């Protein structure tokens, strides 16, 4: 067996991840030399690392030109437009989460360099998941992301809720990873390859042979279990409310967008490429999971009194809507608007949900914990700008036009109507109204109830102001001028190397 040598292309394609890893290690070293009052410098180092990584992604994008994508590292890495879209999404979400974290960690007295290093390392894992053309690389990326996130969830060492959340997340996460690995090993056993393209090609032949059916179904169901766990779909969602509630609020925001987007990137890579020949088998499963997710999450959210738990259930409900985008289409063909809807949904969700968690994080000061619904009482009189922004985020999450959240739902419901799934579209709309109820419950607390802790104005750091400004602006701007972002999504899907996705836009 010949020695493996890295080519210039390998270096170029892996550069965004290499840079993030180097910066993460750099933060760990620099942190040792920083006095406690200057720990904020770690955030700046992490932020600079993200900028360098973004520049490396831009260089790849420029280098690709009209080319759809390029393989690297022995065909395990595939950096195409689809991957680049997700790279930017991860970097933007992490940058905003870092801005939200600086003051918050000082308040919690947990301002350590490891926090930012783990965030960067988890982004490396996410990039491997989005650009993985090989199930081994995807799995390694998943574990790198998950292990970093387990630690981040338990980062508030003195808080029992945080410790409990980390342990629950770790145990359930490890269990689901085991099932997922089992599913992937079955796929490897049947097809003789770990490459998604080869797996897809082999499965296209195997699905026509009845003797393989039971094994194929087991492989599909175990793989789906792992994938659905990572995006927190019902019935694999139990970890999410506890992990979201116990984690530092800035990490809750980070998990709800970046980690979820990575789960979706992985799910789409596997289902729309490697497992596309089995679409007729996985669509009924998705219909069931989608309905169960919308029903379970929306009903559970109605009765929540903790804002983080409420947003956790709302985040699960959004997964239900997004899954409908995969259902749209025929037994063998996907619907372009459905997949487009998922990507737009993930884009707008990044900004509106991070913004909502930003507002909750900003309430952490001055002895106000800020994660109970009652903590938001009379927020308008204490911090009018934050209250108005929160209202914008809530209305956008509910899908009210002309805010950004509307377009995610619009394309998904449109795809269902285009492909004759009227009942599912109607169900989705009805559940959206449920969502409106609990989002307006938050608005009601902020605007129509009296504050319980006096009329004090809440101080907000410059970093947090920037984070809220960016998320608020993006939520309104994408809503008012969506065309540019829809074109961006078309670009991400149109020339994706995954031939099945490429077919979508033609």
């Amino acid at each position, binding site marked *: 067996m010949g020695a493996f040598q890295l080519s210039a292309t390998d270096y170029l394609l892996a550069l965004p991840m290499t840079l993030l890893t180097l910066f993460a290690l750099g933060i760990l070293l620099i942190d040792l030399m920083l006095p406690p009052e200057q720990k904020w410098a770690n955030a700046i180092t992490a932020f600079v690392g993200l900028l360098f990584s973004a520049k490396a992604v831009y260089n790849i994008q420029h280098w690709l030109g009209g080319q759809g994508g390029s393989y690297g590292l022995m065909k395990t890495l595939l950096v195409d437009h689809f991957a680049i879209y997700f790279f930017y999404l991860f970097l933007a979400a992490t940058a905003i989460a870092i801005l939200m974290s600086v003051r918050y960690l000082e308040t919690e007295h947990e301002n350590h360099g490891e926090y930012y290093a783990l965030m960067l390392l988890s982004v490396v894992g996410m990039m491997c998941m989005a650009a993985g053309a090989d199930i081994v690389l995807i799995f390694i990326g998943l574990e790198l992301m998950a292990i970093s996130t387990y630690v981040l969830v338990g980062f508030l060492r003195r808080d029992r809720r945080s410790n409990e959340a980390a342990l629950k997340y770790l145990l359930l996460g490890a269990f689901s990873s085991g099932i997922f690995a089992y599913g992937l090993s079955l796929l490897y056993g049947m097809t003789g390859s770990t490459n998604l393209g080869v797996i897809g090609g082999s499965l296209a032949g195997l699905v026509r042979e009845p003797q393989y059916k039971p094994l194929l179904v087991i492989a599909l169901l175990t793989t789906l279990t792992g994938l659905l766990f990572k995006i927190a779909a019902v019935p694999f969602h139990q970890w999410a409310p506890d992990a979201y509630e116990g984690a530092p609020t800035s990490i809750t925001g980070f998990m709800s967008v970046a980690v979820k987007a990575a789960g979706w990137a992985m799910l789409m890579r596997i289902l729309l490429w490697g497992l596309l020949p089995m679409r007729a088998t996985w669509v009924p499963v998705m219909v069931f999971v989608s309905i169960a997710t919308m029903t379970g999450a929306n009903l559970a959210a*109605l009765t929540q009194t903790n804002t983080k738990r409420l947003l956790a259930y709302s985040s699960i409900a959004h997964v239900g809507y997004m899954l409908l985008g995969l259902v749209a289409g025929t037994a063998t063909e996907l619907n372009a608007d459905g997949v487009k809807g998922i990507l737009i949904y993930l884009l707008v969700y990044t900004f509106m949900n991070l913004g909502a968690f930003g507002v909750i994080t900003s309430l952490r000061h001055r002895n106000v914990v800020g994660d109970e619904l009652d903590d938001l009482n009379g927020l308008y009189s204490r911090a009018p700008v934050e209250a108005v922004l929160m209202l914008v985020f809530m209305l956008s999450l509910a899908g009210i036009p002309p805010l950004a959240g509307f377009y995610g739902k619009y394309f998904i419901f449109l795809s269902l109507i285009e492909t004759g799934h009227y009942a599912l579209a109607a169900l989705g709309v*009805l559940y959206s*109204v449920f969502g409106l*109820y609990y989002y*307006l419950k938050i608005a*009601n607390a902020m605007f129509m109830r009296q504050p319980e802790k006096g009329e004090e104005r809440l101080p907000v750091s410059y970093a947090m102001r920037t984070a809220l400004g960016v998320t608020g602006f993006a939520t309104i701007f994408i809503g008012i001028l969506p065309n540019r972002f829809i074109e961006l999504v078309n670009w991400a899907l149109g020339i994706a190397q995954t031939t099945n996705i490429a077919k979508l836009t033609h």
Partner: protein
Amino acid sequence: MPEEPNPDRKKNPWVQVGRYSELALMLPAGTVAGWLIGSALDHWLHQSWIGIVGMVLGTAAGLIQLIRTISRDTQ
């Protein structure tokens, strides 16, 4: 003095189903009702704009009813 709601009745699953169905249907029902009334008026008065206005008013009515329900529930 208003009568206190019976707690057993509140816990009844069918009452819960009714309550939650009401939540889900409030807004779409208002919108559809407004649109139907507006369309009927359009037909009767030979106009074409009342249907849209009816739909907007119906949506607003549904939304107001939803906000009233939220205010009542969170008291």
